[in-house]
């Protein structure tokens, strides 16, 4: 589904990714771990299309609705409509834009792209409440402006709500566990697990092995200095938790 080939990328002239290769297939969950500054978040931002990051070399191929596409040639909104989703590490506050309106605009933009009939506000309300229930969210939540005055946990839950609404084929969760207490993490993880199926894939970026007890990965990658230095099964995360990263950086 996703093929990252020899990706080199920089921000403000500083090279961050230095020849990254990553292949993700439908049905798989990949976890990415690694020390600060190793390029984990940069990868997520490049896949989402953040204009602040520049790709200097390499390619990102993605299985879209019309076959293999060059993801980097698409605008951020086109990537989203093709089923790429990034759960932000720091979700952006959007003052004045009501969450319910935002979610419906997003949902319908994806519908239009695929030639599917848009949902009217009443049907969408029912649909949305189903998803909110799954994440144990308060009804009033969607009347508030997007992420404005949300607690850290609420922001992260809102990201997963958006994921549930948009039902992406490739979801990248960028440190979704940071800022979550243990109960919230269980709820969010349960939500993520419900969205998991054979046709979609997830890439979970985290600092802590703890999250991987709830969202069980098939493959764990360790990032270091803009490259993957080691890949393995779930046991690799446990090993890193115990031994740190130093032994991998040699």
């Amino acid at each position, binding site marked *: 589904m996703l093929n990252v080939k020899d990706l080199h990328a920089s921000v403000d002239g500083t090279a961050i990714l230095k020849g990254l290769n990553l292949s993700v297939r439908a049905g798989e969950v990949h976890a990415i771990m690694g020390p600060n500054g190793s390029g984990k978040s940069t990868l997520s931002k490049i896949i989402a299309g953040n204009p602040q990051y520049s790709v200097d070399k390499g390619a990102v191929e993605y299985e879209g609705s019309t076959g293999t596409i060059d993801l980097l040639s698409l605008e951020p909104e086109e990537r989203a409509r093709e089923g790429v989703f990034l759960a932000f590490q720091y979700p952006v506050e959007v003052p004045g*834009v009501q969450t319910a309106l935002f979610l419906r605009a997003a949902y319908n933009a994806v519908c239009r792209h695929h030639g599917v009939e848009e949902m009217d506000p009443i049907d969408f309300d029912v649909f949305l409440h189903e998803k909110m229930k799954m994440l144990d969210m308060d009804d009033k939540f969607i009347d508030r402006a997007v992420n404005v005055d949300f607690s850290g946990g609420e922001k992260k839950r809102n990201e997963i709500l958006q994921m549930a609404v948009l039902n992406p084929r490739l979801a990248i969760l960028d440190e979704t566990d940071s800022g979550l207490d243990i109960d919230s993490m269980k709820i969010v993880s349960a939500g993520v697990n419900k969205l998991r199926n054979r046709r979609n894939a997830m890439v979970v970026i985290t600092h802590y092995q703890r999250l991987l007890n709830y969202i069980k990965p098939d493959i764990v990658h360790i990032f270091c200095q803009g490259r993957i230095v080691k890949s393995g099964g779930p046991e690799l995360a446990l090993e890193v938790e115990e031994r740190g990263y130093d032994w991998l950086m040699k």
Partner: protein
Amino acid sequence: MNKLFKDTPFFESLLAAGLPVGPLAERPWPTTREEAWRYTDLSGLAQARAHIPRRVEGTLPASVKALLPKDFQGVVLLNGIPVEALSSFEEETNQRTVQLSLSSSGSGSGDLFEAVNRSAGQAEVRVSVAKGADLSVPFYVIHIMNAVGEGALVCPRLVVNLAEGSRLRVVEMFLGHEVKGYVSIPVAELSLADGAGLDYVQVHDHPPVACHVGRVRVDGARDSQASVLTVTNGAAVFRQDLLCDIRGEGSTVSVNGLHALKGLRHADSHTEIRHHEPASRSEQLYKCVLDDEARSVFNGRIVVDQKAQKTNSYQLNKNLLLSPDARVDTKPQLEIHADDVRCTHGATIGRVNEEEIFYLQTRGIGREDARRLLVRAFMDDVISRLEDPGLREILSRKLKESYGF
């Protein structure tokens, strides 16, 4: 040498139209050399050859009809002349009286334009609300300018008197309809007795070549609550002077505005809020969105008299620039003569936040749609403060359908 009113073709044309403007001849004509008119150039108006529109028969334009509630209460004026057939109100109920008359051409009090308004002796709409009456259904005063020929002069006057403890909502609209230029110089005088409450909304939709110089006066007695909102798409020249005198303890005025400007449009809001008595409160929020080469001016003056202790005053002007060629001039002016007061003011000028746009894009919303959504959110902040849902809807449609935002 400073220019005098009599030196302008505008003055000549008013005299020729039979308006008693003679006594105003020696008044100075405002130029951009004067601080109060620095950013609003009236040289175009000085050259305007105004004429008084004759009675025009007309129907309510479909676009206006679609905007209003089906059973709206209020007065419709075409080119300054009340049209009974289009209006709908009871002259007298036990709660309220509405009188239509010709404005008495009184003394030349007030500034030049207020004096011109009086000299024109055009229609005056006077709404008086009885003690304790609570009228939540908005009363509309709708000015439609559709006179043929440029330079039609429209000088209406609205007088609202609220007796003790009464409440009223008034919506005054200035709508140019399939018309080129005109000059509108309206005056609104709103006075609130003890404990009265008024929601007053002014909605403008002018063609780009119109010239509008308006004045609103608010006079609030003890424990009164006045809320004024001006929503405008500007004009060739759009100027509003809003003067509030807070004369009673415990009273509050809330003065808000929205400039939504495109093309070469201009809008200048001058507010002046005078706290005369202790423990009163004023709050102002003016938001301005500017595209293309539009220009917006906000000048907010707050005067706190020496005895007006415990005054609470808050002012904020937020500007959103959508184009590198748009321009904003904003200026707070605080004159505080009391020592135990709380006054804050602020102004911001910014562009649409790229991070917010990107966030919306990552959810499938196209860049242009994202931008539009954010601009609307910026503006809705002002409109959402209105209590009346029907009115919020009217303004929301106006922004989209007429202003193009």
